[in-house]
């Protein structure tokens, strides 16, 4: 029952999700999202490691893209890709969600196109003591109990309403971490 509802919400998101192919994530590539009304695609900095990347839409169309902003500390990159005309995914602030709220990730784990994994929100904020690694404990993260794999990086983490609340970035101690949407908005806003 729940599976079909989740797939319904995810299906609306899939046209906004792309694959980013530049060989950075070995074999699987990463994901990206057409971000709100910005006209840009957002992904992880560790996915779009080069200035020029290839962007592949869910319907198979490809385009050249170029990285127009990057924040390696936040593991974010903003990509401009002309000609794809992707529908921008609606975004929302994860801070209004409570722990236990349903979330789902769309990405290409191990190269499987547009795979969906579902789970619940654990927390929004700094990592608990004992989790922090490589200085990443100082940032706010969307922390979720949802299974991610290589290939989910840069893809959306969305809530039950289908709003993108973060950009999936990494797994720490089994916990899925995503960059909160407001932090993404802040970087996107620097590009004009």
């Amino acid at each position, binding site marked *: 029952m*729940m599976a*079909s*509802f*989740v797939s*319904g*919400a995810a299906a609306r998101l899939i046209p906004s999700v792309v694959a980013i192919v530049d060989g950075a994530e070995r074999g699987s590539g990463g994901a990206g999202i057409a971000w709100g009304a910005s006209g840009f695609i957002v992904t992880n900095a560790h996915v779009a490691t080069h200035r020029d990347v290839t962007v592949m839409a869910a319907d198979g169309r490809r385009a050249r893209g170029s990285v127009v902003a990057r924040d390696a500390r936040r593991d974010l990159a903003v990509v401009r890709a002309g000609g794809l005309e992707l529908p921008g995914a609606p975004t929302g602030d994860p801070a209004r*969600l*409570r*722990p*236990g*709220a*349903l979330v789902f990730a769309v990405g290409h784990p191990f190269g499987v196109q547009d795979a969906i994994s579902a*789970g*619940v*929100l*654990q*927390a929004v*904020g700094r990592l*608990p*003591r*004992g*989790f922090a690694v490589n200085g990443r404990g100082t940032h706010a993260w969307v*922390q979720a*109990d949802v299974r991610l794999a290589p290939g989910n990086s840069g893809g959306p983490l969305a*809530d*039950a*309403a*289908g709003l993108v609340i973060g950009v999936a970035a990494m797994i720490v*101690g*089994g*916990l899925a971490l995503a960059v909160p949407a407001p932090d993404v908005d802040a970087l996107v806003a620097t590009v004009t």
Partner: protein
Amino acid sequence: MSDEQSTLIALSDQLADAVAKAGASLVAVHARPRLPSTGLHWRDGVVVTTEATVRRDSDIEVTLPDGSRTSATLVGRDRGTDLALLRIAPGRLPVAPLGDPARLQPGHLVLALARLDGTAPRAAFGAVSATGGRWRCWKGGEIDLLVQSDLSLYPGFGGGPLVDASGRVQGINSGGLSRPLATTIPVGTVNRVVEQLLQRGYVSRGWIGAAMQPVRFDAATRTRLQRDGGLLLLSIEPDAPAAHAGLLVGDVIVTIDGVPLDTPDQLRDRLAGDVVGSSLKLELARGGTIVTSEVRIGERPRSRQ
């Protein structure tokens, strides 16, 4: 917005409500280095957590849902069921809403909850993967019901509750009882252990002080004694109930209270629960004949718990 989507949002809200409801009784337990574990306010002034996460006997603190820290004292621990009991000042937070885990079935949606600090509770989500009757975990404790789920117990989730989709507590999650699956010590077992820890600070277990192994008789003995086999006594501790009853190394226990023995578990089951001081009527194969004996069940020394 489609019906599908509003249903999904309603389910999402219901799960978040469940987390908030049970989360109001959730504390962080500071009784080990680095990461705290989770505890649940089981009765007023009484917090349950997992035994393995309480690494010290004093200087224990808990963080309440309002973020304040308060000191806690260790009431007792039971390694067998991986439960420990702490006492805090009464009236500080609501008592957890308890459910009936006997009604859980594979496929039911469940959440594991944790509190790692003074902020909101944390949640992991999954489904019940297996249920069953009584079982004995490798730590030796009797667990009244098997409740296994597919959810991930993240660091710090040990000692936290398994709750259903309405926020009712079904038991306490232990990461140490059967990795990698989350095992839940069901409400009934927790209540039993809480009662004993509050009464005497430890869980009393029956003991006769003998080591034994199952044997099968040869055909001639089977015919002569009309018994298939039993438990062969390999050693008897001095001053133990078995010694007082006159049991001898080499005796084979063939029946307990008139019931033929097939497995050592039958004897273990008779020694479980509130049995100390009661008697076992044994039939023993000794020197080719059957003799009877009565053993008064003692209390297992606490050093062997």
